[in-house]
């Protein structure tokens, strides 16, 4: 069989694996319990591997926050000392079947969503989404939120999810896509659906009233709640598509504010990186272009499985965020179908007459068409100590894809 046919068959297989996925939220747990290989004095972070020296300001701030949260350091200065002397091991979330938003830092006592892909038996975890620590804010207030998760919300949601025997994610996502969510930056509908689903169970779990009320208030008023779930689900969907010999499909897109990295099914284990790009978008009042950090976060796992920028045709509301038009949104979604292996039978866009989003980014098509994926994302500050400052559209560097393609040719071509 010629190489082209081999590649096409491998891609077909990888695509089918993504489509066959059945992600179910099975637990909410402390990371140490559920994340393989996570040890004490270890911080998992978003994006490809990076050293403390090369880490961007916001991610450094988040790491400092984790040291304080875990009690490894008493103050930021001590935390910085630990981090810069190599006393803390830094590894990508993706190397531990996990993902995290923005700085994405996960340590043992962070509570995470646990999603199992029932079709293949693999699990993936994602930490909760908030607007401060993950953007590099290591203040007491920022850390207090993480503590809330550990003390109040995490355990409450764990009880509810276990009582329900797990919550299937697919129907929630399919519904939410029809309601104007795109599962990355617009997750209001899915968050509401989730809150509605857990509310009666939370109330009936035998939990103390204050905990129930606090958790109900939290899940009912968090516009980005479901992002943690969609990211964990995205990772759980994509992982079984890893390691298919001769497949050119992307299994991960991840950024750490310093570099943008992709991983390819037929080149499993390797990262193809390039400098992280700037985000083109809008800033919250008081912030300027020079304040903005570069692209950051594992949340591009959503685009990797056909959501986010790939479903943006159904979420014109997001475009006020990015300064674009509804027609542009539709064109993005159509364009993305030209660089993917296939079209999802499940993720439908009403604005495109209920046709599906593109799934399975093919690096050959990206390079051939000179068209990189569209990702819509939030903007962090360059420096540690701030929360979210804006949002917009970002395009991965073409270099990631050309490097992957060259490596693929090296490995597979005669």
């Amino acid at each position, binding site marked *: 069989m010629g190489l082209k046919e081999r590649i096409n068959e491998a891609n077909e297989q990888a695509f089918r694996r993504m489509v066959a996925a059945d992600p179910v939220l099975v637990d909410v747990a402390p990371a140490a319990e559920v994340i393989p290989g996570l040890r004490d004095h270890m911080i998992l972070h978003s994006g490809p591997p990076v050293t403390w020296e090369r880490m961007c300001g916001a991610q450094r701030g988040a790491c400092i926050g984790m040291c304080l949260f875990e009690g490894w350091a008493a103050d930021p200065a001590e935390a910085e000392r630990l981090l810069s002397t190599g006393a803390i091991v830094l590894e990508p979330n993706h190397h531990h079947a996990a993902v995290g938003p923005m700085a994405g830092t996960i340590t043992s006592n962070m509570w995470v969503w646990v999603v199992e892909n029932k079709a293949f038996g693999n699990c993936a975890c994602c930490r909760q989404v908030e607007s401060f620590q993950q953007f590099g804010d290591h203040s007491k207030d920022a850390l207090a939120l993480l503590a809330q998760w550990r003390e109040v919300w995490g355990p409450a949601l764990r009880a509810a999810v276990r009582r329900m025997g797990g919550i299937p994610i697919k129907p929630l996502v399919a519904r939410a896509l*029809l309601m104007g969510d795109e599962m990355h930056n617009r997750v209001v509908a899915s968050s509401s659906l989730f809150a509605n689903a857990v509310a009666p169970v939370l109330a009936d779990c035998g939990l103390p009233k204050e905990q129930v009320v606090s958790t109900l208030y939290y899940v009912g008023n968090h516009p980005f709640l479901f992002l943690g779930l969609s990211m964990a689900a995205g990772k759980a969907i994509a992982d079984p598509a890893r390691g298919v010999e001769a497949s050119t499909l992307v299994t991960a897109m991840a950024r750490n504010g310093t570099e943008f990295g992709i991983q390819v099914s037929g080149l499993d284990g390797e990262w193809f990186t390039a400098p992280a790009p700037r985000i083109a978008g809008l800033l919250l009042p008081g912030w300027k272009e020079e304040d903005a950090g570069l692209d950051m976060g594992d949340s591009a796992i959503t685009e990797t499985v056909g959501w986010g920028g790939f479903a943006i045709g159904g979420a014109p509301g997001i475009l006020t965020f990015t300064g674009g038009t509804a027609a542009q949104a539709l064109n993005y979604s159509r364009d993305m179908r*030209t660089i993917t292996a296939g079209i999802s039978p499940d993720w*439908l866009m009403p604005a495109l*007459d209920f046709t599906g989003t593109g799934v399975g980014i093919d690096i050959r098509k990206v390079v051939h068409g000179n068209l990189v994926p569209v990702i819509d994302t939030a903007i962090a500050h360059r420096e540690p100590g701030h929360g979210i400052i804006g949002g917009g559209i970002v395009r991965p560097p073409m270099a990631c894809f050309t490097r992957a393609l060259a490596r693929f040719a090296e490995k597979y071509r005669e």
Partner: protein
Amino acid sequence: MRKTIVKQNRYFDSVFLMLVARRIAAQPGIRDASAVLGTAANRKVLAAMGYGAGDEAFAGAGPNDLVLALEGEPAAVDAVAAEADSWLARGSGAPEGAGSALPEPRTVAEAVARRPDASVAIISVPGQHAAREARAALRAGLHVFLFSSNVSAEDELALKTEAAGRGLIVMGPDCGTAFLGGAGLGFANAVRRGPIGIVGPTGTGMQEFASLVHQAGSGLSSGIGTGSRDLSDAIGGLSTLAGIEALEADPATQVLTVLAKPPGAGAEARLRKRLDRCAKPVVLCLLGTEDRAVGGRVRLASTIDEAARLALEAAGQGWPRSLACDPGELRAAAVAEVGRMRPEQRHIRGLFSGGTLCYQAQAIFRRAGLAVRSNAPLPGMAELPDPHRSLGSTFVDLGAEIFVDGRPHPMIDATLRRKRLDQEGEDPEVAVVLLDFILGAIASPDPVGDLLGAARGAQRAARRRGGHLCLAASVCGTDQDTQGLQTQVRALAEAGVLVFPTAAQAAAFCQEAMLLLAERKEADR
């Protein structure tokens, strides 16, 4: 027959599902169709309609599952059930882009996906990418009109071989003109339909032939361009032979014409052999060959005019008076022109936008024993050392690669030809300037107008020197071309340019003038 199909873990919008159900119900053999989520309430409704009795999957369906309920002829129901996923994948059934302008497709494959009835690809991308696009077009099931040049012989052979295997034709590379069932491709003129077919590698040659056939009151069935290298031995005439095959079988074609420059020896032998057994009358014109032998049923011509005349004759049509050539009149006109020239005027400069017309003019000159230099020389003519500078008597093909690389073709943009005409006008040794003007949909809106200023300038310069510059021209086109044949001819005549009805006649006139100048030079000794 009633059947229920359960698709687990599939959620769809309820209105969308109603659209799907309606489309399924419209299928022949289907009496009723429902598509609903497997909620207890929905299942109760379906059960009341007689569905799902004893069906375990139906009983076990939940709100996150999809239930399709079908009633109808067993064959029809089974067919829908087998394709259930595809019914759900078709979206709401609205045609793509309904209500909003779709961006243009970026590849030929995308284009054919949108228009599966597409039949011909027209390719004019830069040469280094042309073979790839042509291959993609063939694989998408399209015939290829390959205007691009700078495609290797190797690629051309591979493309034409692949095309033959798929029952498709590649017209090109470097194919400027074709007429497919009434549609003019590339540089083409508005020519009525008729019984005369033509195949061959010449672009402007085909344009001139088609225009003359139209002016004679007849018309073209089709004109199949083959690309300039098709009749080389490297390619062996693959597209020419395919074109002959098609025209021979075409009910609209009564006469076949092959118009080409002399082919490679092997290709010519194959061609003649094929033409000899052609069921329809054939006219073969190999420009520049002197072969006058009657080749059986194949009529031989050596100029485009002659090819047109023989083709029309075979179709039972005469050659019109308007196109007739009186050698006596040509001679008289030549005498009148030469009589006004200064002794140092002794060269001709032919500035051609049509490569074939440049070639034909050289052939006419060679037959008369006159030598010219050219950047695209006929065998036996000398090569012009610097294409940008005429030397002695010179015929320049301004459509050659060296002039059109990165620039529009001279049929579209007259800038280079204008500058060259200025240059020739400054040369006191120039006696005659021969020009061709080519009309058509893609050509300049006013080819004659584009050059008139320079023409008048050159005439004035000669007058200032006490001499006379003879300008001779022909216009290739028809009155149905947007530029209007008669309008263009009139504009030339009013500017004192001698206009001839065909390019061959214009060249023949120039031949007379140059012979006279040679005689005069002899006499002066």
